[in-house]
């Protein structure tokens, strides 16, 4: 869910930039280190970024008639980890603002924080925890993507509520009451959207495992033994 251009008032959009920029710089630092180690990773990152952009511009089938797009960052987080996802997410969000008019330039910081940093981070943590607990890979992908989306949407509601608390002055009560309203109304579109995106992501990984699982093994997303189990091949 993108916050539109001009929606955040003066102290807030700068604040979200200030919060996001260190995370992006850390991501760039990690990326540079990775590229130095393995030079072939940069073109891969580039195509992954383009893949996220194209994925996020596809319309999801919707239940309630609202026009909804996947964020695609959950998949990036599972494959590349949250730090690099933040960099890819920033570039993708910039292009979305410029090409599709989703989001904006002053609100880029806030959008990067919710969609590029917190969403992927939550997705990544759930993915890691789920894989450690030996759950089914597809179920874990579903949960990671869905919860990543929900985290994004809650953070976006919080960002809006902080900028527009009930009763004009920022108090905890005003923030909570405003947050509740933003979250409640956006839940109509965002709650089913996250489930649909989770299902599509799980299906996506299912086809990838069936057709070209060596990519995932090579990127250390899943281990070879898990792939064998998923495809029903005895070790």
């Amino acid at each position, binding site marked *: 869910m993108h916050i539109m251009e001009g929606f955040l008032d003066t102290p807030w959009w700068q604040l979200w930039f200030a919060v996001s920029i260190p995370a992006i710089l850390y991501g760039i630092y990690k990326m540079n280190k990775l590229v130095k180690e393995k030079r072939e990773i940069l073109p891969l990152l580039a195509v992954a970024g383009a*893949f996220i952009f194209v994925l996020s511009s596809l319309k999801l089938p919707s239940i309630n008639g609202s026009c909804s797009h996947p964020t695609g960052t959950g998949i990036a987080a599972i494959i590349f980890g949250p730090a690099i996802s933040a960099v890819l997410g920033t570039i993708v969000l910039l292009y979305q603002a410029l090409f599709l008019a989703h989001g904006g330039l002053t609100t880029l910081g806030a959008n990067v924080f919710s969609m590029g940093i917190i969403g992927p981070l939550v997705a990544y943590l759930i993915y890691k925890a789920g894989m450690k607990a030996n759950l089914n890979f597809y179920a874990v992908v579903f949960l990671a993507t869905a919860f990543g989306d929900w985290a994004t949407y809650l953070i976006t509601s919080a960002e809006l509520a902080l900028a527009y608390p009930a009763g004009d002055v920022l108090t905890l009560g005003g923030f909570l009451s405003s947050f509740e309203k933003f979250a409640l109304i956006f839940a109509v579109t965002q709650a089913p959207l996250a489930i649909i995106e989770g299902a599509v992501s799980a299906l996506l990984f299912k086809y990838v495992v069936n057709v070209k699982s060596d990519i995932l093994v090579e990127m250390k997303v899943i281990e070879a033994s898990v792939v064998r189990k998923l495809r029903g091949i005895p070790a």
Partner: protein
Amino acid sequence: MTNILDDYALMSPLRHRNNWLKLAIVLFGLLAGISSTSPVTPLFIAFCMGFTTVALGRAPLKLYLKLLLAPLGFAVTGVLIIALFSGSGQELLSFKLMGYSVLLRKDGLELALLVLSRSLSGMCCLYFLVLTTPMIELFAVLKATRLPESFIELSMLIYRYIFVFLGMAISIRYAQTVRLGYSSFSRSLRSLGMLGSTLFIRSWEQGDKLFLAMNSRCYDGKMTLFEVHRPVRVPELLLTSAYFLLTLALLYLTKNASIV
């Protein structure tokens, strides 16, 4: 999704103007819009930018209006929430909705109108940039700033591959649609999953090929760009400064104005 705005920028006559000037106009508009306290200045900015984009930039008017309406869903929802739940002043209207009592207050309405006008001006500024300046020109500008080299390099590669994969996605989607892949909800989920995975695998292979191709051409992490030197002309400078001054004056004059 077939509507990539960059195509229009490539045809715009304003493409051949100085990039820094255009960027300055856009940034000024964004900042002035966001820091104004009455809806008058943002509306003025929106009008000026819209006029410039359509009349001087030759963007199709129909397309422009359609673009402005596109993000309306989010804007209207957000603005309604602000209008109905914020503020503490005089009540204008109150009614009950699903058990919630809803109050429309004077300052809430004012804030909502301000936010709406600011978004509108922000959108117009963005569209001015997008519809007159192709991304290729912006890369040259980005190179001149001190952003990390790898970040810019990555942006350029992503930009290139967006078009490759978008074409791929569109043709796969057509193929799926004519085979009734989107005829029901569960089928669309399945088709979308397949489309995503095919895209993913193809992009991976493309990435390998790209590395090979660039490596064999001695890629060392830097692509050099040719930046066309375009001096700012006097009429452009005059028009821009007139616009800046007028906006600033309006910003100052409407500091305490209220329209409700």
